[in-house]
Each structure stands twice: as C-alpha cells, then as structure tokens.
C-alpha cells in the first residue's frame, strides 16, 4: 500500500486561489453575454481541482480570468500575487525553436542565463520523460509528446498555479490515459497546484481531488464533489466509473434544462 498517499489536513491559510461571487460579462446592453455568474471557488495549495461542465459553462473564461488574461466584471478574485501558468488544448510550440528552446523560452524571458536555462530545460524534459529529445523540432514529435513539451514549458515558468484548459482533449484515448498517469506523477513529485478544465467526466474523476460542476449559460457552480479514491487511480476502475456516472447524471439534468 506504499502508493496510497495520505495528505495532511489543510487549513484555510493554504488557499492559493479565491474567487468570491466572480462574474464575467462580455459586451454591454441588450447584446451582453453573461459568461460567469457569481462563481465562488477556492483552491488550496497542492490541490488538484477539476472544473467540469458542458459547452458554454465558461470554463475557459474562468481560467483566463485566473491567469490574468482577461478582467472580471464583478466580485473579487484573489491569487495573492502568485505566478500562474496556462496550458491549452494545442501544444502551440514555436516551430522556429527546438524542443529545448521552447522550454527555455519561459526562462529566457525572465533573464535566466544560457547555461542555467539549458540545464533546467534538460531537467524538465527528464520530468516529462523526453530525455534526449531537446534538439528535435516540435514537428518531429507526436501530439502527446508535444503536449508534454508544453507541460515542461509551463513548469519552466516556475508558476505557483498550473491552469490546464482541456490539455488532453485532442489526443487519442490510449495516449490520454498514459498522460493522466504522467500528470498525476508530476503533480505529486513537483507538489503542484492544478486547476484542470475538462468536459470529460471520467477524466475529471480520474484526476481531481475535487470535481467542480458548472452550469451553462451563465456559468455557475452547481456542485463541488470531493473525490476520495486512493491514488494512483485508473480511469476504468469501478470507483472512478461509479462516481463519474453519478456526476454524469447531474450534468445531463443540467444540459436538459436548456432543451426548450
């Protein structure tokens, strides 16, 4: 049972992200679109939180707000000045740089010296198990490998909070399954705090300490499900499948509400 980890009970001082009645509205007047409506959410240090919802629930909007790429329309959002990194569905590596160059770029922009950059990039490529691929070009790698380079690049930012916007959405099931294991391992080894957006219920239950279910148009928090299953988990284990079925029912009821 050495793999089952026991986590210390966390206090409220551990909170790294706090959203209090956060709203986000696009446009104004009659054409205004309310993307998020009074969303309250806290994420603690070292926690893995999955945000789950159907289309139009403002999951990506929420991440953009936390990442500071967009401004909130109401409420308060507090990340205590922490550094945030964001990963997308596309790896979006720069083709004019080598794999290592892409990972180094985050450090280069912070003015870290060349030798230190190279050393750290090699280290991070080890972490995502791409040892020796540093001199390759992004196009020489498969989709799953590129996504791991993107993860290494995000880690290179030394951010306190890693936001992931459906990072495995474009990958095949086999690759995704293996990358779940990898992400779980890296999250534990590096003591990361992760906010992971997905519309795949099983993926959310497979990965999260909590699954936060959002409604659609506007996005509101419907329910916050704690996930207590021992790690490492398997996406096809009965516990994961069972809880995923419960959450799916709840999600279907929410989607059906929009049927008129």
């Amino acid at each position, binding site marked *: 049972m*050495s*793999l089952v980890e026991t986590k210390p009970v966390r206090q409220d001082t551990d909170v790294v992200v706090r959203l209090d009645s956060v709203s986000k509205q696009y446009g104004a007047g009659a054409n205004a679109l309310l993307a998020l409506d009074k969303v309250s959410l806290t994420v603690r240090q070292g926690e893995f939180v999955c945000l789950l919802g159907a289309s139009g629930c403002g999951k990506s909007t929420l991440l953009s707000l936390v*990442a500071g*790429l967009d401004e909130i329309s109401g409420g308060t959002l507090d990340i205590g000045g922490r550094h945030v*990194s*964001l990963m*997308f569905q*596309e790896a*979006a590596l*720069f*083709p*004019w740089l080598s794999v290592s160059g892409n990972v180094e*770029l*985050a450090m*280069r*922009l*912070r003015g870290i010296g060349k030798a230190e950059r190279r050393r750290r990039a090699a280290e991070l490529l080890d972490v995502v*198990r791409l040892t020796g691929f540093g001199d390759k*070009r*992004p*196009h*020489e*790698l*498969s*989709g*799953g*490998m590129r996504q791991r380079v993107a993860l290494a*690049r995000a880690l290179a*930012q030394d951010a306190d909070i890693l936001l992931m916007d459906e990072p495995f959405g474009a990958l095949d099931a*086999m*690759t995704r399954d*293996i990358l779940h*294991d*990898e992400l779980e*391992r890296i999250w534990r080894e590096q003591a990361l705090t992760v906010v992971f957006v997905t519309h795949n219920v099983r993926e959310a239950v497979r990965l999260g300490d909590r699954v936060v279910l959002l409604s659609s148009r506007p996005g509101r928090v419907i329910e916050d499900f704690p996930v207590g299953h021992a790690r490492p988990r398997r996406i096809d284990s009965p516990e994961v499948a069972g809880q995923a079925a419960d959450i799916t029912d709840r999600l279907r009821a929410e989607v059906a509400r929009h049927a008129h």
Partner: protein
Amino acid sequence: MPTDVKDDAADRLSGLDALELSPARERDLGRRLWRATWPKLLAVGIVIAAWQLVVLSEWKPEYVLPGPATVFGDLATLVTTGDFWEGVRLTMLRAVTGFALAVLIGTVVGAAVSRFAPLRAAIGSLITGLQTMPSIMWFPLAILLFQISESAIMFVVVIGAAPSVANGLISGIDYVPRTWLRVGQVLGMTGFARYRHLILPASLPSFISGLKQGWAFSWRSLMAGELLVIVPGALSVGVRMQQARDLSESSLVISFIIVVLVIGILIDMLFNAADNALRKRWGLTGT
C-alpha cells in the same frame, strides 16, 4: 513493488512514443537530383527544338532570327570576354544595392504600418496600389528628378520592390496564429520581447515570400531602367543589349535575353532554397 510500477509507466510511455514517431526515410541524393532535373532539361530541349523549327520554316530571315546554334555559339564567345563580366558585375551591383535598400525601407515601413493602426488606415492600401504599378511608369519622373543617373535607376528599383517586402511583413504579422499569441501572453511577453521572440519569427515565412516577390520586381525594374536610362560610361547588361540592337546583332540580343533569364532563375533558386530550408525546419513540408 512501487519501483516496478514506475518503470512500467516509463516503458508504456516510451513504447507509445516510439510507435508514434514515423521512421526516418533515407533517399538517394543522386536519384532525387535527377528527378528534379530531368523535367527541366526536357523543357529546355523542347523550347530549343521549337525555336529551331521556326528558324527552319524561314518565317524570318536568319539575320533577324538566328537559330540556336548561332546564338549559343555567340553566347559562348561572349562569356569568355572580360567586358561581358564587367557588365554583369555592374548590373548585379545595382541589383543587389537596390534590393538591399528596398528591403531596408520595406521592412521599416511594413513594421510601422502593422504597429500603428492610423498609419495602416492611411497608407495600407497605398502600398498594395504601388505594388501593382508597372515600374516603367516611374522612369519619366525619375529622370526629371535625378536626371540620367544611377539615382534614377535606384529610385525606380526601390519603389518597385519595397511595397512587396512591406506587404510580406505586414501579412506575416497579421496572420500570426492566435494560439501563439496566447502562449506569448501566458509567458509574459510584452513590448519589444514580444516582437523579438514571437511576432518577427512567426512572420518569417511570409516575409521570405515578400522578399522573393520584391526581388522579382526589382530585377524587372532594373532591366527596364538599364534600357531607358543609359548612364554614360556604365556599360551594364542592358546597355550592351541596346548596343547590340543598334547594330542589328540579333544573335547578341538573344544571348543577353538568355543571360538575364539565367540570372533570374539562379537568384530565384536561392530564394527557394531559403524557403525550403525554413519549411523543412518548421515541419511545413508535405512529406
């Protein structure tokens, strides 16, 4: 045993990586060269054969339209003379200087236009308009402004090529993929760093096609210029061609046409090589 589980995971992952990477393909360089060359040789052969047939049909007398054998004979003699290479040197010097100036001006204008919205509104469409202007239209004005001089030729070469260079850069900057821009934002790129590390490298392919087009325009403008603006003492390729026409030496005129064509093709090959190298590096090739 936890370590075993860990190694399993690593094996699964590297196994998957190995399956997903396409095996490297080796191909024989000689065969590839031959495959690229023979259609060109065939095309040249067909053109020469057609030319010979026209000559044999006696559509025009031999002294007006000489056959390939005569022309290539004269061309062979021509390229052994120092005078000829002096002319080529002068013409190429003008071409390279003019093109370099055009690249400098086009890049500065293109960067400024894509950076400042009012400037784009003001001269964005003017640049495209200039691009479609036949460069020969500029010579009367250029001669009035600069008299019969090198400057008159340079003026037209630059004004012919700079808009293409500027447009290449502008469209390259306009079409930087949104996902890259978002990554730039996430990585905290602002101001100059954003240009240095994202916008400029991302617009490189479009910039290179702008350069290529700019070169074609400047080469054309230069040839028109050398025929129209004959600077005393400067015996460029164009001037020598004009002299040949004045002496009714058809064979020499055709020889110079071939020389200009070959230079154009050679330079185009250089640009294509740069373009292909970039595409290969970026993984934009079909294979």
